[in-house]
């Protein structure tokens, strides 16, 4: 489904021939799909620009008595840091950049869905899958770093003669993490987009507003859940197997 009206629509004309020349030739459904990918890309850039501008504004001239932008960012970053300390303990500090980046990126792109004419990048499966794959790879790299070759014990389960069976179950379980992380975020944000679209078509006044309030809650909760699951997965691969 392609958005009917977007603010960064004008970039479609520039980017689509560059990125998807064969779709422009084919036209029809292929062109619509290409438009959707281009929208995702442009709005991902918008989120990046927003985050970079806010961070630069907040860290320009840091004072010991914070005020305005710096105060706001200190509350946000401090809150995330506290959450990481609560769930992962002190050794979670090493993963603060990754987890905070994921949380801020997902939160800002989720919140974009509340503004009419903006397409949240997290409403596309591709963005979410990329984030989930990053988390998946990180957990295993961290596990191998922490335990070396013994990390394989994590996959073998507690009883030795059940190990061949457990190995396959564990591997499937680890891969299903990617799918569940991807689909949870996509289903919530993309489903919200579609719901808003249908409600606007049925009742253009007031009713979509209620849905938007619900959506505000969903945006925060989903960003929080993604962050929390990342922390739990990393924590799980850091632990000793038993």
């Amino acid at each position: 489904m392609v958005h009917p009206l977007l603010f960064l629509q004008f970039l479609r004309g520039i980017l689509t021939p560059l990125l998807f020349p064969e779709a422009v030739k084919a036209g029809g459904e292929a062109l619509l799909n290409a438009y959707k990918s281009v929208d995702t890309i442009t709005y991902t850039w918008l989120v990046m620009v927003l985050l970079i501008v806010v961070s630069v504004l907040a860290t320009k001239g840091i004072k010991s008595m914070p005020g305005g932008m710096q105060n706001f960012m200190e509350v946000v970053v401090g809150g995330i840091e506290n959450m990481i300390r609560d769930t992962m303990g002190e050794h979670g500090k090493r993963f603060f950049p990754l987890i905070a980046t994921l949380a801020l990126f997902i939160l800002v792109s989720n919140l974009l869905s509340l503004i009419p004419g903006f397409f949240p990048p997290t409403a596309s499966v591709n963005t979410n899958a990329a984030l989930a794959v990053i988390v998946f790879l990180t957990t295993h790299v961290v596990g191998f770093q922490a335990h070396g070759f013994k990390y394989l014990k994590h996959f073998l389960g507690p009883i030795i003669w059940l190990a061949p069976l457990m190995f396959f179950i564990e591997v499937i379980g680890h891969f299903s993490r990617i799918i569940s992380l991807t689909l949870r975020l996509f289903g919530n944000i993309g489903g919200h987009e579609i719901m808003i679209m249908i409600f606007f078509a049925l009742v253009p006044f007031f009713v979509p507003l209620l849905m938007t309030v619900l959506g505000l809650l969903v945006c925060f909760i989903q960003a929080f859940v993604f962050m929390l699951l990342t922390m739990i997965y990393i924590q799980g691969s850091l632990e000793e197997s038993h």
Partner: protein
Amino acid sequence: MEFFSACVIAAGFGMGIAAFGTGIGQGLAVKGAVDGIARNPSASGKILTSMMIGLAMIESLAIYALVVALIILFANPFKVEVLKALEHVVK
């Protein structure tokens, strides 16, 4: 045509069944959380956050069903073949 009406019915029923189970699950979760808060109001903050996480986890089950329903409705993998077969039948 029957294929597409069957798709719509399947999507609707699938969503209904998923919402049924998820509703029961979320109800139990909220019941537990409210019980906990009633017994110990000072712990409401921690209970609220863990309830929210739990609710989001349970909700993801319904969301999976929603994704499947959306795939059936908007991105049906068998659409092209069925349309081809239909053309054959019509001719």
